C-alpha cells in the first residue's frame, strides 16, 4: 500500500531507513526544520541546514524512489533566542523558491514563553506574506495543553486560512479545539512519549478521517519510522478497507501538502475490485 510519511527528520536517519520505507510502500517524506539536539549559535548554521534538507536529502531519498520535501523554520526550542531567530527568518524567503520547500515549519511553542511567541508570530506573518503552508509543533507532555491553547489564541488574531495550517502532535486532550476551528491536525506516533498506533486509530474512529494526518516523526531521539506502518496494520486489523487506509495514510497528506503545487503526488483511488485485499 502506498503511504506518505508527512513528518520525518531524515538527516537524523540512515539510508537503510529510506530503503526499508521504500519496501513498505512509502512514496514521499516531508522534513520539517527542527532542533539539532543542541542550540545552534549562528544564522549560517541554519542556512546550511536548510541547504542540506532542500538539496542533499532529496537526492538521498531519490536513490530509493522516495520523494523528499521539506519545510524551513526556526523551531520552538531555538526560538528562545530572538536575535538569532530574526536573523534566520530574514533568509527564509530565499528557500521558498526552491522546488521541494513546502512552507514554514515546524514553528510554535516548546515552553510557551514570550520569546517563543514573538518568533512564532513573526514566522506565521512571513508565511502569510509569501503564501506558504504552515506546520505547527505543539509541546510535549505536561506543557501540551497550555501550548496548544496559546497557539490557537495567537492564530485567532492573525489572518491565517486554517485549511493551510497543520497543528501537529495532538492527542486525545488536544485534538478537539484545533479540529473544530478548521485546522488540519497530526498524530505523531512515538514509542512511549507521544501517541501510539492504537490510540491513533481510536481517534480516527472518534473524529473521522477529514483533516487528519498521521506521522511517526522519526528523528534522532528514541523514535521509529515504522510506527506509521504499525498504525496502518492496526487500522486494517480493525476491519477498515485498503481504500480507507489510503485515504488517511496517503490521500490526506497528498491533499494537505498538495495545497502547495510543488507537492505533486495526487490522491489515489483503488478500483473497487481491489478493496478487501490484505495489506
Amino acid at each position, binding site marked *: 500500500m502506498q503511504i506518505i510519511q508527512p513528518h520525518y527528520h531524515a538527516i537524523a536517519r540512515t539510508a537503510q531507513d529510506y530503503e526499508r520505507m521504500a519496501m513498505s510502500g512509502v512514496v514521499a517524506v516531508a522534513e520539517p526544520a527542527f532542533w539539532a539536539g543542541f542550540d545552534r549559535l549562528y544564522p549560517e548554521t541554519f542556512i546550511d541546514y536548510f541547504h542540506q534538507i532542500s538539496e542533499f536529502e532529496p537526492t538521498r531519498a531519490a536513490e530509493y524512489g522516495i520523494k523528499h520535501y521539506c519545510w524551513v523554520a526556526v523551531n520552538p526550542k531555538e526560538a528562545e533566542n530572538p536575535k538569532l531567530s530574526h536573523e534566520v527568518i530574514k533568509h527564509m524567503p530565499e528557500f521558498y523558491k526552491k522546488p521541494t520547500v513546502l512552507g514554514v515549519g515546524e514553528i510554535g511553542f516548546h515552553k510557551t514563553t514570550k520569546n517563543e511567541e514573538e518568533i512564532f508570530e513573526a514566522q506565521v506573518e512571513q508565511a502569510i506574506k509569501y503564501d506558504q503552508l504552515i506546520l505547527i509543533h505543539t509541546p510535549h507532555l505536561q506543557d501540551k495543553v497550555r501550548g496548544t491553547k496559546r497557539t490557537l489564541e495567537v492564530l485567532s488574531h492573525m489572518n491565517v486560512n486554517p485549511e493551510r495550517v497543520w497543528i501537529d502532535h495532538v492527542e486525545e486532550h488536544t485534538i478537539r479545539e484545533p479540529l473544530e476551528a478548521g485546522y488540519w491536525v497530526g498524530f505523531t506516533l512515538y514509542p512511549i512519549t507521544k501517541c*501510539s498506533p*492504537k*490510540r491513533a486509530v*481510536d481517534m480516527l474512529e472518534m473524529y473521522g478521517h477529514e483533516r487528519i494526518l498521521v506521522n511517526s516523526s522519526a528523528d534522532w531521539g528514541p523514535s521509529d519510522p515504522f510506527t506509521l506502518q504499525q498504525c496502518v496494520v492496526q487500522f486494517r486489523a480493525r476491519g477498515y478497507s485498503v481504500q480507507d487506509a489510503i485515504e488517511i495514510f496517503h490521500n490526506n497528506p497528498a491533499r494537505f501538502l498538495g495545497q502547495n503545487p510543488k507537492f505533486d503526488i495526487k490522491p489515489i483511488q483503488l478500483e473497487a475490485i481491489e478493496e478487501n485485499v490484505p495489506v
Partner: protein
Amino acid sequence: MMQTALQVLDREYLEARCALLELAAALDRIDRAHDHEGGTGDLNDSRLELLNQAIRTLSEESHLPNRSERLLLLFSDLG
C-alpha cells in the same frame, strides 16, 4: 550499586505513564464498541471484572509490596 529510588523513578515515569494511557485507551475502546453495538449497562465479562479488580488492587493497596505477584495470582486459575 543499586539505583536510588529517584533514579528508578526517572527511568520508569514515562513508561509507566504510557502503560496507564494504553490501559485507559483500551478500556475506552471496549466501551465505545459496546455503545456502538447498542449494549446497555456494563459489559458483563469475567475478564473485564478481573481487569477492574487489578486496577482496584493497584490503587487501594498501592502501599503494599509484590504488586506484580498479586496481579498475576489474580489472573491465575488456582482451582
